[in-house]
């Protein structure tokens, strides 16, 4: 996921928020006009003006229609516009004769429904981008009220609140686009950095796995070549070198299943290979439990066991090792132990990567844990606990 909200979605979500906010803005305006008129009519004890209340409800219904998903269709928008036009004509014709003589087309009771129609135009602007819907909505409210006011002898007065509201909405819609371009200019760079970070994480992962593979293969082969006496190299050593070079050809740079498969096998294969190299390995415990492991876990465990046995052969000073398998309902524990010279893990040189990368790293990658018990002269035991599922 990107670190910041993408520009491509920002306009859509802001317009949706504007539409929802506008709906409630309009509803409050209509509600205030409705309640105010109701109180006045009740106070004067006359119900002659009650149809005006119905007209306000029609305008509210028009707002509700354009807010609905189905209200985005041209026919629904047109119907809402016509209904609003008719309703405010009717409303003005009823309200104006009941106002004081000094009141004109800018009376607060006329401004409020006009403002409601203007902000409902903002909802329509979500479907028909631009400021046109807002201006049209303003005209739908303003023209019939002004005409009715003049006809009924109240005259015309410029309705500052309704016009200001329209102008404010036009400015908001127009400036949103401009300001968004300016303030969100850094979004592509930040989003790109997020993607690069994910790619870098994969590269780092590939390098780490490559490092482990190289340790388990190439370093071993160099050690063999460095240790043998001058002369003809044995068939087994040559096969080992060819296998390691095959890992490279299979793609050791990008960690691939093919490269892993060339090395991995299962724990039994690791034990067989160690025995072939001259190590006497005794296997005890619930060996069948190893077959219940997930393939990825099984591979990681086999590679880790292979490294443990290689460590015994190379560093312990003994040619025997014990491998014990203990299984529970949830975990499998493999213990590789020897009675060799032992070591102090904290004092190991930093370039001793086998235990750190090939054992701990691999087991941790599949959700397992590793514990090492060792002391100079007291042998070594490495416990690898991995989950079954």
């Amino acid at each position, binding site marked *: 996921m990107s670190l910041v*909200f993408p520009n491509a979605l920002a306009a859509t979500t802001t317009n949706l928020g504007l539409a929802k*906010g506008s709906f409630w803005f309009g509803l409050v305006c209509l509600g205030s006009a409705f309640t105010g008129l109701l109180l006045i009519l009740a106070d004067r004890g006359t119900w002659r003006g009650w149809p005006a209340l119905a007209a306000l409800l029609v305008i509210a219904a028009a707002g509700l229609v354009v807010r609905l998903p189905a209200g985005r269709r041209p026919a629904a928008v047109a119907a809402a516009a016509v209904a609003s036009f008719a309703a405010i004509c009717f409303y003005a014709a009823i309200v104006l004769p009941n106002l004081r003589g000094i009141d004109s087309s800018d009376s607060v009771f006329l401004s409020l429904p006009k403002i409601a129609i203007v902000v409902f135009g903002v909802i329509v602007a979500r479907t028909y981008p631009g400021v046109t819907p807002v201006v049209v909505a303003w005209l739908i409210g303003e023209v019939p009220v002004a005409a009715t006011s003049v006809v009924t002898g109240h005259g015309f007065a410029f309705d500052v609140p309704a016009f200001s509201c329209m102008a404010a909405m036009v400015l908001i819609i127009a400036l949103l686009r401009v300001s968004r371009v300016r303030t969100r200019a850094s979004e592509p760079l*930040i989003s790109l950095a997020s*993607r690069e970070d994910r790619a870098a994480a994969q590269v780092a992962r*590939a390098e780490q796995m490559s490092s482990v593979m190289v340790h388990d293969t190439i370093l071993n082969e160099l050690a063999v070549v460095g240790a043998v006496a001058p002369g003809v190299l044995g068939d087994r050593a040559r096969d080992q070198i060819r296998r390691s070079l095959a890992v490279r050809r299979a793609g050791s*740079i990008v960690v691939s299943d093919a490269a892993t498969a060339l090395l991995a096998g299962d724990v039994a294969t690791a034990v067989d290979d160690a025995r072939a190299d001259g190590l006497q390995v005794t296997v005890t415990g619930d060996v069948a439990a190893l077959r219940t492991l997930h393939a990825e876990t099984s591979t990681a465990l086999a590679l880790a066991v292979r490294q443990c046995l290689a460590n015994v052969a190379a560093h312990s000073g003994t040619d025997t090792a014990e491998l014990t398998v203990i299984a529970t309902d949830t975990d499998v524990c493999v213990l590789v132990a020897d009675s060799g010279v032992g070591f102090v893990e904290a004092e190991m040189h930093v370039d001793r990567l086998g235990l750190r990368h090939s054992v701990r790293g691999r087991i941790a990658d599949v959700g397992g844990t590793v514990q090492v018990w060792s002391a100079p002269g007291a042998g070594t035991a490495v416990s690898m606990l991995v989950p079954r599922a």
Partner: protein
Amino acid sequence: MRNDTPQRLDPLGGMTARLFVIGSAVVALVVAVTLSLSTFDQLSAPVLEVAALLAITAAAGYYVRAASPFRAPFPRRAYVVVNLLGLAAIVLNSAAQWGTNEIVRDDWPPIAFAVLALTFGSWRPGWEIATGTVVATLTVGTIAFVQADTFAADVPGLVFAILAATPILATGAAASAFSRSLVGSLLDWRSAGAGPATSETPSEGDGVAARASHLVHLEDHVYPFLERVAETAEVSADDGDRARVLARELRTLLVLDGERSWLSRIVRTTDDPRRIADRMSEAQRGLVRSLVTHVRNNAAFDHDRMRLTLRGDEWEATCTIEVPCDAAHNPRVQLAPYVAVARSVFGTVSWQIARGAMAITVTFDPSTTGSTTR
């Protein structure tokens, strides 16, 4: 979701909203001064009117200041202060017109307050805006109701209360709905993004290749050597020596590659002895990476001398980016979006541009974030 705000979830959107805050502050002050002058004949205590104008000016000024990306996120305290100052303007204006106020519609404080409230939706959660709106609405309505006897129109007092409170109630309801809508959309986007990686993420086997130094060594020296040995099957004394040297070099390079953090790969002069950079979250890494890229691509900065220093313990860590800069290029303005986003992903963010250098320091909790695979 209850306390999420659009600005917290989309800091860049907060920068857009800040421009509207500045605009609304200007409009609110113009409305206040214009209507105050036009209703001068209704004032009974001009001094209180001046105080009311000062209060709304303070509200607008404080609002603009608190909405700065360098102070993100906009705190609840700032919202309360702006509300209180706006309410103070309402009360003072009413006192200034007490007994002489003839028309409720031309009272400027509810309108000026409403203009400010229109942009609240980008900064605070919907419920908080709704609460503030109810308080302001009741205050304005009550004051108008109490003054009803002095108004010229012959309508029930409650009608004055409703009409006076309508601007604040309408804009408050709109701002609250706007906030809820935006937070919902942003959380939906985050939920969608939290799923499996999409195709925009480079996948394994999709050209992602390790470029560590040990690999170069392998290709240039080790593989050719082993291929020759496997081919000839003869090992000389020199081959044995060569194998031991190659093994030692390879082992050293493996260690060095393993000790390089992701940050030291993008900035050469990174001082991070405890590898604290590896404990950053994905969002934190992304932000630092984008900031470094911004510094590299911008003429205002001497990126060759950029230096990163990471320090900390188990519970708190700091990352400081220092780079020489040229004040003539106005690096502060260009830095704003990064500081705004940084404030949403780091514990604290402090920055300084002085004596020809910029320093940004972020803090984070290394015990709860980070990747073990780095």
